[in-house]
Every structure is written in structure tokens, then in C-alpha cells.
């Protein structure tokens, strides 16, 4: 009865590599399934015709010119943060501190705008802001990186904690700078003089951010794939021992790469504070540091693909809120939809990396 050599029903093996069209096919199927599933959930909750729900989701992002701009702006910022965390991820250094680094950059920007707003000429102020935000973000990332490189401190947990330290420091300065006293918020900085506001390019105040994001996407792609630094990052990510063996100074690469990550996050902070919001709050990041992790991972750390993945997530969350507001429900519905699509995509990766072999016909086995 109990045969010793019974073959398991399912046997999982690792795939070599799949042709790109099959990988794409699996991903597309996952997204399609997720969309159908989200539609079903929405239908159950609202009792509305699913087609109408999809139309509403679409309208949430493309309904008006303003909405399209908001969609592009959110995509651009999310993309910037995703680009920022990507180099670290490529070397398997889990920088979950995007939020903290953005806040550090944003805080530095706001500090320059408030303290130097009436002292420096416009262009010089922006240069100072740029330098300050990049340095602040970089410092916030280098602290955990240095400990990671020197003592192998767990960077996932360290960067995570740095987020909340940054949040409280920002909260501290918000109370210091609040206008009027006791309001608990800073309000629009330099509303009249507009000192330190990034210039508007073209028809929308959001266009500049979109252009910057596009430029950085290309730069990051080149950096990761065609530069010596990018190559070193890839080697360290693949195997630290190999890297040491071939004479790469792993410690230096870790610190340098995290510095780059932090600097870019700081820049994203600048874009948020000086480019669009013109104020500073503790929730200005909107959890983008975490969302960016998923954007980057879904794109397999490929900057070009990240354009699509960040777009997808922003699109869904806008659509979800639109559906929710249409039915008088909570706007957090967008988060649920985002979660569902992420689960499907995360699950689909398995079928790209592994192959599932079912046991051959049972009759053959009995003959053994």
C-alpha cells in the first residue's frame, strides 16, 4: 500500500529561460485575471454592472484634461522614486526607506524656501534647494548603508525605521514653522513671492516633473546597463563572494549605490515640495517609498518597464477612488484594487521562474 518510491503528484522545477512573448503572455494573463477579479469584487460590493465599473475606473484617470495631468504627475513622481530605489535592489539591498529619504529631501527643500526665500535671487535659491535636497536624501540613505557595509546590519529594518524618524523630524519642523501658530500645518510656502517654486514649463505645472522623470528613466537605464558602476552593482547582486574575488570593493559599492538611491529620493522630495505641493506635510510621500518597491520589482528592476508598472498602479488607485466616490464609499477602495492586482502579478512570477510537472498517468506507475 505505502509504496516507498511514490512519485509526488506535483513536481516543481526551475525553468531555464522563457521566450519574451511567453513571459509577456503570462503577465498579461495575470493582469487580465486581476482586472476580472477586481470587477467581480466591485460588482459584489456595489451591485453595479461590471462594464460600467470599468468605464468609471477609466474615467477616473482619463475623464478630463486635469485628471490626465494628475495621472501623469503621480506616475512621474512614483517613477522617480522607483528609479531611485532600483540600483540598490539590483544588488539585493532592500532599501525600504524611500519615504524617509523623500521626506528628508522635502524637508531640506522647504527649509531653504522658508529660511532663504527672501535672501537669495530666484535661480540661486533653486540651485541651493537642489543641492540641499539631494544631500539630505543621500545622508538619510548612507547612514543605514554604512552600517550595512561595515557591520552587515539588516538594511531592510534599518531603512524602515529611518522612515519614521524622518516623519517625526518633519512633524517637529512643521510645528516650528507652522503658519499661523497653532494651525498644525505650514500652508503654502512663499505664496506671494513664489520664491523657490520650480518654474512652470508649458501648459501645466506638472509637465516639468514628467520631463524630469522621463530623462531620469533613460539615464538610469543607461547607468545600470552600460556603465561600469551598473556592472559592478549587478555582480554584487549576483554574488558578493564573486565580487570580492574579482576585486570589487563591495563595501564601497553598497555605500555608493545607496547614496545614489537616497539622492534621487531627495530629488523626488524637491519635486513634490517645490514643484507641485508648495508645502510640507508628514504624509507628502503618500507611501510612495513602499509602492515604488513594488513598481520596481514588478518591472524586474528594468527602468523602461517601470514606466508601465508605475502607470498601472497609479491608474488603478485613481480608478478605485473614482468608483468609491461614485457610490459614496471610502476612497481606500483603490488600495484594495492595487492589492489584488499586486497579488496576481506576484503569483504570476512563479509560473515564469518555475515549471510545474504533473505526475504521469497513474496506470503506468502501477506497472512498476
Amino acid at each position, binding site marked *: 500500500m505505502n509504496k516507498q518510491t511514490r512519485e509526488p503528484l506535483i513536481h516543481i522545477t*526551475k525553468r531555464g529561460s522563457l521566450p519574451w512573448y511567453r513571459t509577456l503572455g503570462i503577465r498579461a494573463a495575470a493582469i487580465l485575471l486581476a482586472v476580472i477579479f477586481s470587477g467581480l469584487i466591485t460588482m459584489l460590493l456595489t451591485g453595479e454592472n461590471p462594464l460600467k465599473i470599468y468605464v468609471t475606473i477609466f474615467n477616473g484617470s482619463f475623464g478630463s484634461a486635469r485628471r490626465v495631468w494628475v495621472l501623469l504627475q503621480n506616475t512621474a513622481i512614483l517613477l522617480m522614486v522607483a528609479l531611485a530605489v532600483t540600483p540598490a535592489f539590483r544588488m539585493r539591498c532592500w532599501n*525600504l526607506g524611500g519615504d524617509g529619504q523623500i521626506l528628508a529631501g522635502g524637508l531640506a527643500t522647504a527649509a531653504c524656501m522658508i529660511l532663504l526665500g527672501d535672501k537669495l535671487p530666484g535661480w540661486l535659491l533653486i540651485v541651493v534647494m537642489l543641492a540641499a535636497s539631494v544631500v539630505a536624501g543621500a545622508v538619510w540613505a548612507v547612514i543605514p548603508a554604512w552600517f550595512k557595509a561595515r557591520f*552587515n546590519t539588516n538594511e531592510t529594518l*534599518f531603512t524602515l525605521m529611518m522612515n519614521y524618524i524622518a516623519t517625526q523630524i518633519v512633524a517637529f519642523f512643521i510645528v516650528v514653522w507652522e503658519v499661523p501658530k497653532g494651525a498644525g500645518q505650514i500652508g503654502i510656502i512663499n505664496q506671494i513671492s513664489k520664491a523657490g517654486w520650480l518654474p512652470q514649463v508649458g501648459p501645466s505645472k506638472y509637465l516639468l516633473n514628467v520631463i524630469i522623470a522621463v530623462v531620469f528613466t533613460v539615464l538610469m537605464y543607461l547607468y545600470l546597463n552600460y556603465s561600469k558602476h551598473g556592472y559592478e552593482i549587478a555582480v554584487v547582486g549576483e554574488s558578493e563572494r564573486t565580487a570580492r574575488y574579482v576585486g570589487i570593493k563591495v563595501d564601497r559599492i553598497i555605500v555608493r549605490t545607496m547614496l545614489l538611491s537616497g539622492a534621487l529620493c531627495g530629488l523626488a522630495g524637491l519635486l513634490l515640495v517645490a514643484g507641485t505641493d508648495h508645502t510640507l506635510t508628514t504624509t507628502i510621500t503618500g507611501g510612495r517609498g513602499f509602492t515604488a518597491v513594488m513598481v520596481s520589482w514588478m518591472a524586474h528592476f528594468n527602468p523602461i518597464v517601470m514606466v508601465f508598472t508605475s502607470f498601472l498602479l497609479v491608474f488603478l488607485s485613481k480608478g478605485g477612488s473614482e468608483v468609491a466616490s461614485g*457610490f459614496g*464609499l471610502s476612497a*481606500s477602495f483603490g488600495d484594495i484594487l492595487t*492589492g489584488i492586482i499586486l497579488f496576481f502579478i*506576484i503569483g504570476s*512570477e512563479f509560473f515564469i521562474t518555475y515549471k510545474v510537472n504533473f505526475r504521469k498517468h497513474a496506470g503506468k506507475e502501477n506497472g512498476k
Partner: protein
Amino acid sequence: MIDLIAFIPRAVIQGIPLLFGSTGETLTEKSGNLNLGIPGIMYVGAISGVIGSFFYEQAGAPSPVLTVLIPLLCSMTGSLLMGLLYCFLTVTLRANQNVTGLALTTFGVGIGNFFGGSLIKLANSAVPVIVLSKTSAYFSATPAGGATDWFSRLFLSYGFLAYAAVIIALAASYILNHTRIGLHLRAVGESPTTADAAGISVTRYKYVSTCIGSVIAGLGGLYYIMDYAKGIWSSDAFGDRGWLAIALVIFSVWRPTLGIFASFLFGGLYILNVYIPTGTNLAIKELYKMLPYVVTVLVLVVTSVRNKRENQPPASLGLPYFREER
């Protein structure tokens, strides 16, 4: 000077949700799963209990036993499902644990705030806000009754879930350190390859410990709503306590007994700003709120610098296990 007899019970009450979260996460991490979905799971644990209790209170809540049992079971089911989802993705499908955990947190917090904000509308109920006073009365009933001596205030002024949290932490510590199951679990977390070769089912241990861990963490959310918040749901009120619970795991160097005191300490640090006289300087209060995180970072750094073997995270923490991979 701080009035300690007034301060300590407040700190403990703040610490209890963190204790649930950190005990759950410690069990989970001991199996090698770094579940960053804990904040989401705690939201789901809270809202599932709220949903169960909401409908039962709508029906009049006739039986005291069911008034307690229904939210409890709903909460546990909700967080169990989240735990299963995490396990399915990370253990069976070997997905990246960080990404899965973060997705779970987005999803869980979304579920919590969505149902918290929409439950009344979805249920076509006449009440304006979710106030579960009947259920909360049972959950926050204290053994001290109305006694006001210092002993009752320090030790007997908590709802039953608070005592449960301490007992669960002690039990978790006993199981981890003094039973065969605990030994196997630690082996799975330290080196799944070795455990597998020794005939321990890595998959089963990871599933069971992560799911139990999720259920425990979810109770923290339930405690927060039913006892601390007196049955009132408000969006995002639970805040970043889930992340603080993860910090606590590091702070207590993966020891649930240490976690009991650490959670009360964190609870104290969390509300210290209310008790420390700062005069008119409100800004300083914000810096006091930073303390739990700074302390955690210090512990993280110190343990890694000293590099003592017994204080390290489980060696395979965060890594998926695939038998055929070298």
C-alpha cells in the same frame, strides 16, 4: 514629576497591541518569513472583528458569550486568511517576501479603511458612525472593577485581551525554547536545507507558524478597537503601530518574554510626550515620538556590531526556500 501610577497603566494599554503584533511577528520570523504585512494584518484583524460585532449588535446582541465570541472569531478568521495568502505567495509560489508583505499591508490597510468607512452605507444602517459600545463593554471590563488602590490600578485595570497577550507571549516563548516543535521551527528559520534533510517539513512549519503569527497579530488590532478605542472605528486611527510592532521584534532580539517588557516600554515612549512637561514648546513633543524608532535603530546597530550569535536574526530570514536550488 510624572505620576507613575497613572502613567504605567496607560503605557501598558498602549503596549498591548504592539505586544500582540510583535509576538506574532516573532513566531513568523523564527520560521524565516519576514512578514512586512503585519500592519495590514492588524488592520484586517481589527475590521473583521468590527464587522462581526457590528452585525451582531444590529441584531440586538442578546447573548453576552456570543458578543465576545463573534468578534473574536471573525477577527481570527480575517487575519488567518491574510496569513494564508502571504504563505501561499511566499512559501508555495516562492515570491519575494518584502514585496508580498508590502502588498499585503497596502491591501490590508485598504480593507480596514474601506470597510470602516463604508460599512454603514453597505449595510444600509441607520446609525451615523460605528460605535460598538455593547461589545466594547465586555472587552474592556476589568477585574479591578471600581477599586482605586495602587495594586488594582497597576495590575487589574485591563481588559481580558491584555492578559491574553501576556499569556500568549509567555506560551510562545516556552514553545520556542523548550519544546521539540520550537526546536524544529528554529531549525527551519536558521537553515531550511538542514531542517529539510533532517526530515522536517519546511513548508508545513512555515505555513503554521506564519498563520498562527498572523492570528496573534490580528488580535492586537481587535484589542485596539474594542478595548483601547472603546469600540469606535475611525480611519487610520491605528496608525503606524504595525511598523512599531515589527521594530519591537528587533528590539526584543526575537524573544517574546523580553517583548512583554519592551512593548510596555514602547507604549510608554509612545505616550511620553503627553506626560513630559514641555511648557509651550509643542514642537519638542514631536521629537519625543521619535524615541521608539531611534531606540530600535540603536538596538539593531548594537546587535550587529557585537555580532553575538544568540542575538542575531534567524539566518534565512527573508529568503524563500526551494529544495532544488543550491
